[in-house]
């Protein structure tokens, strides 16, 4: 089979973008990605898009294609919560490898912050919980992750102060990105003193709700001077609901990672850049530990040592992640891959972490429910 390459990326600023709807934002990010890849609309023969909670539509892909004037040979949208971006990139790779498409545009965007009331957003997201057993209790996404965190901290010895390290690091990273939602630096004490949301999670352990969009182009040939290949991809699905999770040792992330690494014929130790989903600090800590980038209960200590910093051995989410770059739904989860591509292509500007050759990208949807891992490699 052919190799699939990431050949261009684009994003809008993330944050409060008044007066722009989901399609406006998607179109802007898509236009940037096409320009970056030096591709015209007629070159795009595949289109994959995410969903937007502010624009429920039966065929968002067709709607976007019409407005953006695309006429692809293959198009649909995809829904897998926070793992949607990863799943779209995995599918785009398969379409290219199989010879179905030459140039697949992957795009997502949403006015999640300004397009609806905050309560509405929180309630929409809470519905990933069980409608009979969980949601009626007044549970929310932060509550699900807080329950998960309480057990994980109890079993592994990870502490709230360890979680705070990641909030601080993501802000420090976002400060270098002009498009990030939250660029003000914070200290560990600020995180620990921030107002309680769902114990043990506090406000600064939680990502913001943002407006924004992101896009990537996956091609059969490298383009525009960059040679960043999608070397491997894998998924893991063990449960949907928090209540149904069994144990704390494998939520499904490890399944996805092993499949992706096996396909890439690489190991965890070969990775030199990390793009890991971080809806909450606990999400990031658990994923780093389950994936094997830190020992159980030891992710905070690694962060404290500077291992995940821009100048450390394993730079992590150098755009600022969901915690600081922002979370606009599917695009928030795609922004990690956008940044990984830019790092490997040597196009991350002042955030460039030297020469990066192998990136590990991981996204989870629901409550550690749906997992997608991608391995990216720079050729030459």
């Amino acid at each position, binding site marked *: 089979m052919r190799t699939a390459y990431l050949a261009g990326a684009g994003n809008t600023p993330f944050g409060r973008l008044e007066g722009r709807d989901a399609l406006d934002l998607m179109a802007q990010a898509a236009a940037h990605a096409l320009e970056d890849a030096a591709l015209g609309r007629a070159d795009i023969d595949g289109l994959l898009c995410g969903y937007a909670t502010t624009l429920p539509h039966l065929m968002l892909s067709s709607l976007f294609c019409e407005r953006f004037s695309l006429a692809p040979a293959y198009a649909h949208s995809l829904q897998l919560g926070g793992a949607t971006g990863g799943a779209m990139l995995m599918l785009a790779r398969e379409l290219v490898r199989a010879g179905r498409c030459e140039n697949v545009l992957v795009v997502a965007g949403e006015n999640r912050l300004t397009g609806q009331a905050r*309560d509405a957003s*929180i*309630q929409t997201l*809470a519905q990933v919980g*069980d*409608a*009979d*057993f*969980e949601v*009626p*209790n*007044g*549970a*929310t996404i*932060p*509550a699900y992750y*807080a*329950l*998960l*965190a*309480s*057990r994980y901290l*109890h079993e592994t010895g990870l502490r709230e102060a360890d979680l705070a390290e990641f909030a601080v690091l993501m802000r420090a990273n976002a400060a270098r990105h002009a498009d990030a939602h939250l660029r003000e630096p914070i200290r560990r004490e600020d995180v620990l003193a921030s*107002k*309680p*949301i*769902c*114990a*043990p*999670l506090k406000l600064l352990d939680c990502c913001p709700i943002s407006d924004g969009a992101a896009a990537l182009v996956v091609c059969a040939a490298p383009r525009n001077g960059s040679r960043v290949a999608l070397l491997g991809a894998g998924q893991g699905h063990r449960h949907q*609901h*928090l*209540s*149904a999770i069994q144990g704390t040792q494998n939520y499904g992330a490890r399944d996805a990672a092993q499949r992706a690494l096996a396909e890439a014929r690489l190991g965890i130790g070969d990775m030199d850049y990390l793009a890991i989903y971080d809806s909450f600090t606990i999400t990031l800590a658990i994923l780093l530990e389950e994936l094997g980038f830190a020992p159980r209960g030891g992710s905070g200590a690694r962060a404290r040592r500077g291992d995940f910093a821009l100048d450390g051995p394993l730079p992590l989410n150098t755009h600022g992640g969901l915690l600081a770059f922002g979370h606009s739904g599917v695009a928030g989860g795609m922004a990690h891959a956008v940044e990984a591509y830019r790092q490997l292509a040597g196009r991350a500007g002042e955030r460039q972490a030297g020469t990066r050759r192998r990136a590990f990208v991981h996204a989870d949807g629901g409550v550690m429910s749906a997992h997608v891992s991608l391995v990216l490699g720079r050729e030459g």
Partner: protein
Amino acid sequence: MASLAMPFREGLQRGELRYQACSACGTAQTLARYACRRCGGTQLEWRKSAGRGVVYAVTVVARAPSEDWRALAPYTLALVDLDEGARLMGHAEPGVSIGDRVEATVFEFAGRRLLRFRREP
């Protein structure tokens, strides 16, 4: 609204805690399923739980999802492993910790009956 979990909801309305179990292997199911999580058997029956168990996870919700719930916040939510083997989410007495023995009670909120776990006396 009909759903797989109707017997659970109807049970709560009557003050009875029910869980699904596999007729073939006896495994208790968490939530509601079409097939047994252990053996794949499709003959699942609803049984009555004694309502006692151990706290598996706990949180205090300070940021409630809606105006209704804000009246009650902060409230404690817990995941409890019932002695029969199913895991269940419910409200809980403030201050409960992971590992505590608890028993289920039922309370009414916004016209609906919900579970509230309290420490075993």
